[in-house]
């Protein structure tokens, strides 16, 4: 049954000022339309420069559910190609990442392609003479994703020609990337430490919304963070606070803490929590780090960079970054009720190893399938994914601190427990879903 395809009015009706219809989470049809519209119309994160440092290096990922690969061409430029052979559709690379040398060779019939995707050679080429092959789609090689942008090492791609250009799409929100990158004394990040992968039986948007949900930690994480606080209370007085306690305990901060920390709203569904302070504000100093920052930037600027303690910055549609801890989470949609979460960590180039150590500890304590904090969240998403099938109420409430004139405002900082960012994400969702429909 199709209710939504081509039906702009029906799609728009799913998002009201203060609530959204459950079909945005449970309908397979809506999910398919997201893959056809939301993701191709948006600038989607595809990877980091440091994952493909040398010519011929490639890395496979997805834009929505479409497989693409990044590859560094001989001229140093990174191309994003649809990971599909133009002959019969075979996925070109067998591993997620590697080096292909000067060309890709399809494992099925050995068509080969330059690392910019163009067709290099076909065995028994004669068989295509006088068949009009030159005019075929296949002759153009592996289809490129035409719109690619490298922002200080972070690679984004947009499949559709329509939509917004890069600057209009992101606007001021790029300041969160700037802050994360500027935390390196040489202004450079490197993917490091390995990627944690975590399978969630729920809709991808539940994860995105959760990144700005500040009314849940002290409730859902009482089991993990609350236990940390309780166990830590029993430590003999004077015991040095372990890094792990520094990381987990702030999840139990009060409502007041989260209200005061603030949330900033930018255009197009982007925004961040932690305007004034955050759960990352009170980490102890890493020996030698500030000295390096001071030498690189001068004292005042170094302080300004490190005093910025944004908690979660959400980039529409499906990533979140944590500047103070150099972590990026990628919420990859698989089906309406299935999402792969990849948590990537970055090393601050030329900074002490202890920073990477803390980043990795954070990642495994919070984002691993073996993490107790992660268990708390996933349990809630999976219960929501099930509960939404109840016909008792078809609407999800997003009303907290709603103000009727908010849709017109941008770049405002509001109460840290507002559900404005979620309403705002759904306004963007509605816009990119119906753009060009």
């Amino acid at each position, binding site marked *: 049954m199709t209710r939504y395809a081509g039906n702009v009015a029906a799609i728009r009706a799913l998002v009201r000022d203060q609530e959204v219809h459950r079909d945005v989470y449970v309908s397979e049809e809506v999910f398919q339309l997201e893959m056809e519209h939301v993701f191709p119309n948006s600038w989607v994160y595809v990877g980091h420069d440091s994952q493909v440092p040398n010519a011929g290096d490639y890395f496979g990922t997805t834009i929505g559910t479409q497989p693409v690969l990044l590859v560094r061409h001989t001229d140093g430029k990174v191309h994003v190609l649809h990971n599909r052979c133009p002959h019969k559709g075979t996925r070109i690379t067998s591993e997620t990442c590697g080096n292909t040398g000067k060309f890709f060779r399809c494992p099925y019939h050995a068509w080969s392609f330059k690392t910019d995707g163009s067709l290099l050679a076909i065995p028994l080429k004669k068989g295509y003479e006088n068949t009009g092959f030159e005019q075929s789609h296949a002759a153009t090689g592996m289809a490129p994703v035409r719109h690619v942008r490298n922002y200080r090492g972070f690679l984004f791609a947009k499949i559709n020609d329509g939509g917004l250009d890069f600057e209009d799409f992101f606007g001021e929100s790029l300041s969160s990337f700037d802050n994360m990158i500027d935390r390196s004394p040489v202004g450079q990040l490197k993917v*490091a*430490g*390995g*990627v*944690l*992968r*975590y*399978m*969630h*039986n729920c809709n991808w948007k539940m994860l995105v919304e959760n990144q700005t949900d500040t009314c849940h930690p002290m409730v*859902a994480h*009482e*089991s*993990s963070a*609350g*236990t*940390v606080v*309780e*166990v830590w209370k029993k430590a003999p007085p004077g015991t040095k606070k*372990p890094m*792990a*306690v520094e990381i987990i305990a702030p999840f139990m901060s009060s409502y007041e803490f989260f209200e005061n920390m603030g949330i900033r709203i930018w255009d197009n569904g982007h925004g961040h929590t932690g305007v004034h302070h955050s759960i990352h504000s009170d980490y102890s100093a890493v020996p030698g780090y500030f000295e390096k920052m001071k030498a690189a930037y001068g004292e005042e600027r170094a302080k300004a960079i490190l005093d910025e303690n944004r908690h979660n910055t959400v980039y529409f549609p499906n990533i979140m970054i944590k500047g103070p801890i150099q972590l990026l989470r990628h919420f990859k949609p698989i089906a309406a009720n299935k999402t*792969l979460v990849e948590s990537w*960590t970055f090393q601050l180039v030329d900074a002490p*190893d202890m920073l*990477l*150590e803390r980043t*990795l500890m954070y*990642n*495994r*304590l919070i984002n*691993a*399938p*073996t993490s*107790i904090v*992660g*268990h*708390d969240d*996933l*349990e*809630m998403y999976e219960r929501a994914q099930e509960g939404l099938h109840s016909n008792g109420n078809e609407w999800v409430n997003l009303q907290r601190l709603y103000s009727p004139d908010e849709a017109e405002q941008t770049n405002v900082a509001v109460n840290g427990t507002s559900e404005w960012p979620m309403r705002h994400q759904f306004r963007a969702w509605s816009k990119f879903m119906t753009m060009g429909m």
Partner: protein
Amino acid sequence: MSMLADAPLKSAVPTDQELIDFVVREARLIDQQRFDEWLDMYADDAFYWMPLEWNQTDPRLTCSLMYEDKLLLSIRVERLKGARTFSQKPKSRCHHVLQTPQVDSRNTAANSYVTWTAMHYVETRLEEQTLYAAWATHHMSVEDGRLKINLKRVDVINCDAAFGNIQLFM
């Protein structure tokens, strides 16, 4: 089942059989959810390590699924008892099938013993039952006449796969 390893060692140096019994008993305590007794098998400065990478050598600058000291392990055990531990309502259960542990090294002078155990581990909650295949490496020593675990390393065969929740201990 012999609860040999629960008792003090017969002599200052553990026999191979005593090492084996100790490893088997550890799995049994997890399966029976006797987590406080289980925790007692670990030395105060012990680590429980589940690498994320095949043949991983560095737990510090490479991410792991778990790399936890006794404080973190005891937090997990406390959490499992919590009234508001929603991901454990209802509770998970687990089941270990071990191959006979192999004694890889015995260094009496250094008070260090290492065993290697192939195993299948099943965790179940609600309708879901998930099978993991893994190898457990136990680094042990003798403390006050009893064996203690200094490091337990669990290498899951598909360590880099995308898992759902893994809630108990392998």
